[in-house]
Structures are given as structure tokens and as C-alpha cells.
């Protein structure tokens, strides 16, 4: 009962508040068009109830109502999974949201993996070499000041010219974004040991590899998880941005672009929800991994 009052109830209250505000916004933004429809049809008999139901169920609303998005999300994002046993992979056709979500997710995960590995390796190099620290760090920071929207099409074009298409270029755009928080976090993490802990290793005449694995790496683990949470979320953004210049073939980015071409706002919103849910799930999974690892490292609960 207490858990309900302290955890479930506040969350439900906020969600309810958002849904209500959304409905109000939906009516407010869509009714102007609906009134125009009535006027053109010389319909003067409409009641307020008619206006409500009609504005909330337009084909191309300015702001789709929550239930429209929910229905679209269910039909294209969840329901096809139910057909899997019957129809096999044909159930996940390019007409479904789940298909595009999978395309984006695979690029996200690949880009995130490469980005995290690159970030860790760069951080190792930076803490072990003053020259690397001085020369690489400015470039790492400069890389993130370039808008990804500007650089993404160039990466796609350049890689396409050397024959790389599809998953890899998108993953590399994810990498471009996601290595950054990992470098910054891990440099900080590898430098986290106190002077006294480092002195201790020195009194044992430990090699720098021993100091790294027995001291620096375990000290950096909390930083690793924090930066991985940021990295996985922007990996997803990177993958979506990478899908925009590919001519809207596949992926959530393509789905968003197609939706905006054809005014399919319901489709856009359900794709946005899918992206948000994917990001939240990925961050949540890293959180679970973090709790497991820190528990094994004996951190007090």
C-alpha cells in the first residue's frame, strides 16, 4: 500500500495530468480547422460534443490526440509482433513501425558499442601520455561543436563513395556522438584514484598495467556507467539523424521524414514515442547492469 502511495500514485497523477493537458491542447489546436470544415459544409447544426469528437479524430490533425497515437502505436508498433508465429518475418513489413524501430535500434547498438570502445581507448591513451592529453583532447571537444545535422550527410556521402551503405554509416554517426561522453567520463574516472591509493601501488613497484587494472579501471567503473547512459541516448539521436539524408528508406528517422512529407502527424508522433521508449529502455538496461556490477563490487546498498 505504501509503495502504491509513494511510487505509483505520483507517477499516475503526472501521467494523467499530461494526458489531460494533451487533450485540451489537441482540441484547442485542431478546432479551427474543424470549424472551417463545418462552415464549408454549411453545417450550422453542430453541437459542442460533435466538435469534440470530430477534432479529436481528424485524419491529419495539427496535434493528434493521445488515443489516436496510442492506436497507431499499437497497430504498427506492437500488434505485428503477435503475427510473428503465424507469418514469420513477413509480419514485420516495412509498413510497420516496429520494422523501422529495429532498423534504428541495430544502428544505435552498433554505433554505441564502437563509440564506447573508442571512448575508453582514447581515455586510456590520454591518461597515459601527456602528448595525447594535450593534442587529442582539443580535437575531441572540437568534434562536438560541429552540428551533427551538418556533418551527417557528408559522412553518408563519403562512405557511400567507398562502398559503405546502410547500417555502417549510420552506426558511425552514432559513434561520432557517443564516444564523446565516454572519453570525458573515463578520463575523469581513470584519474579518480586518490594520491594515496596511487602511492600505495608505487610502494609495491607495480607496473602501470597493474596499476591500471587493479586501481584505475575499478575506480572508473561508476563513471563508465554514467557516461554510457548519456552515450546510448545520443547514439539513438545519431542513428535517427543518420537516417534523414538516406532518402527516407528505413528507420525511425525515415519514418519521421515520410510522415512530415505527407502530413501524417499521427505517424510522426508514434515514431517519436517509439524513439523515446527505445531510449528509455536502453538507459534502463544500463542502469540494471550498473546495479549488478556495483553490487558485485561490494558497494553498500
Amino acid at each position, binding site marked *: 500500500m505504501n509503495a502504491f502511495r509513494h511510487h505509483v500514485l505520483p507517477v499516475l497523477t503526472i501521467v494523467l495530468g499530461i494526458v489531460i493537458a494533451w487533450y485540451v491542447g489537441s482540441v484547442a489546436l485542431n478546432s479551427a480547422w474543424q470549424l472551417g470544415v463545418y462552415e464549408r459544409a454549411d453545417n450550422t447544426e453542430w453541437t459542442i460534443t460533435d466538435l469534440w469528437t470530430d477534432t479529436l479524430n481528424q485524419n491529419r490533425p495539427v496535434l493528434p490526440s493521445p488515443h489516436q497515437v496510442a492506436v497507431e502505436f499499437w497497430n504498427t508498433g506492437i500488434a505485428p509482433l503477435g503475427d510473428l508465429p503465424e507469418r514469420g518475418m513477413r509480419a514485420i513489413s516495412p509498413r510497420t513501425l516496429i520494422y523501422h524501430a529495429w532498423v534504428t535500434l541495430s544502428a544505435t547498438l552498433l554505433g554505441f558499442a564502437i563509440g564506447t570502445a573508442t571512448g575508453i581507448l582514447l581515455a586510456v591513451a590520454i591518461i597515459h601520455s601527456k602528448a595525447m592529453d594535450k593534442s587529442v583532447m582539443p580535437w575531441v571537444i572540437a568534434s562536438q561543436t560541429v552540428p551533427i545535422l551538418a556533418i551527417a550527410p557528408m559522412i553518408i556521402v563519403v562512405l557511400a563513395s567507398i562502398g559503405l551503405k546502410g547500417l555502417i554509416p549510420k552506426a558511425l554517426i552514432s559513434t561520432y556522438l557517443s564516444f564523446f561522453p565516454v572519453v570525458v567520463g573515463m578520463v575523469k574516472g581513470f584519474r579518480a584514484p*586518490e594520491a*594515496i*591509493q596511487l*602511492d*600505495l*601501488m*608505487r*610502494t*609495491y*613497484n*607495480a607496473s602501470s598495467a*597493474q596499476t591500471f587494472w*587493479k*586501481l584505475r579501471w*575499478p575506480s572508473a*567503473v561508476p563513471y563508465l556507467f554514467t557516461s554510457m547512459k548519456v552515450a546510448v541516448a545520443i547514439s539513438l539521436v545519431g542513428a535517427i539523424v543518420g537516417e534523414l539524408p538516406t532518402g527516407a528508406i528505413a528507420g525511425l528517422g525515415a519514418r519521421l521524414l515520410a510522415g512530415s512529407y505527407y502530413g501524417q502527424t499521427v505517424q510522426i508522433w508514434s515514431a517519436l514515442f517509439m524513439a523515446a521508449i527505445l531510449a528509455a529502455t536502453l538507459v534502463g538496461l544500463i542502469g540494471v547492469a550498473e546495479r549488478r556490477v556495483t553490487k558485485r*563490487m*561490494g*558497494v*553498500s546498498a
Partner: protein
Amino acid sequence: MAVEGENDDKKQEQAAPSQEKAAPSVVSAKNLSLTFETNDGPVQALSEVNLEIGKGEFVSFIGPSGCGKTTFLRVIADLETATGGEIKVNGTTPREARRNRSYGYVFQAPALYPWRTIAKNVALPLEVMGFSQSEKRERIRRTLELVNLTGFENKYPWQLSGGMQQRVSIARALSFDADLLLMDEPFGALDEIVRDHLNSQLLELWAKTNKTIAFVTHSIPEAVYLSTKIVVMSPRPGRVTDVITSTLPKERPLEVRESPEFLEIAHRVREGLKAGHSYEE
């Protein structure tokens, strides 16, 4: 540096003139000085320090903060490098001594690695030095027993009190059996009661293991109670003002602190400290 070998014999003769006549010198400093370059200009941390520490001695360094007692210990451990004079540890340079893993160092704070259990913390130097599994197990058992912590192997540092944590760090310094133990105010952060207890445990341990101990402290009773030799230091520049050889017997129950002999030595230490403090007036 080239003269190291030649001087060895001579040094061993002059070593430890007081306590154990023939004991070879474990640490031998001659005109040792160290100047730190800081933003406010050079700071002389050690000036003209001459000192011999014989094998099996328990030497305390006492003095106000800034007198260079910790710095001297760090020079022995090759954590700092002297800028003048000469120092030998086990007849070699401090660097050589560190490479030979010839000392165990106990810091002011326990400096345990929080992600390691107590047993794993004690095993840390053993892992670094490549001891075998069975040897590791045996040494963990033995050193934890030595500091009365048997049964805590699988606890994490945060589950132990401050005094117990510091005992773990002593066990860790003992685990690889270096003959020289360097202790930098190991009990400074502990309350008086725990401190008394650990002091008598440390004496027992010293008697059992026959190690040479260099011990930094700022407590007069602690220095007098523990040591065979007390080095009184004073700051600005850090220098040795008095070296007192203890006349107390090796066997020292806590009550020895009320004996006239004890009070006499304590008095002399206090006088030495006062003399060094004159700069404050």
C-alpha cells in the same frame, strides 16, 4: 650514486650506535636535504638530516606539522626524491629498495580499495608481486591473524570500523614480509582508546616479527611508549633537533606509561619540541 657499494661496510659499522651495537644500518641518511619548488618559491622541507636506523629498531619521528617527518619517510620509500645529501636504504638507493620491495608502507588513511574484500585488500601486494594462489591464501590467513582480524576475510572495508580498517592496512603492509615497516601517523585519525589498544598490539607484533619500524607521530606518549629511539624534529627548515634513545625495557605493558623513566623521556621529548618551536614567538 657510484660510491654506494664501497661505502657499505663502513656504514654498517657506524650504524645504530645505541640500541643494538652490531646491527647493520637499514636506513642511513647523511646531510640529507629536500627543497620543494612551489609557486611561492622554494620550501625547504628537510635540511641537513643525519640519521641511522639499525635493524630491529623501532624509531619514532615526532614534531609539529611541517617539520618534514612525513617527507623523510617518503624519501625512504622513494615517494619523494632528496635534492641534496645521501640516503641509503638496505645499503642501496631508495629506488633500488623500492624495486626490491624491501619495505611496507602504512599511510595516514587506510587507503583500502573499497571494491575489494578484506582478504582481497591484503592480497593486493601479493597479486602485484606474483605470489602463488596457495601462498596468497596462507599469507592472508597469517597476517590477518597477526592483526586479530580472522573471520573478517569476506567483509568489505565499509563494514569495518576505522581502527579495524587501519589494522587491515597494517596486515597488507606485512603480507609480503618486508623487513622494514614505514608507518606515517597510522593511528592519527583514531580516538585515544582505540589508539592505546592498537599501540600495544603494534608492540606485540613488532616483538613477534622482529621488523624494523619507522613511525611518524605527533603524540608524545605514543612515541615514548613505542620506540627504542625517538627522533625529535622541528620545522622551517625541517631538521632533527634531538635523537633520544629509550631506556625503557623491550617488554612494555601499558602501565609503563606511569613509570618515572617514561615520564623522564617524555619530558626530554617535550623540551626538544619546545626548543624547536622557538620560531613561533
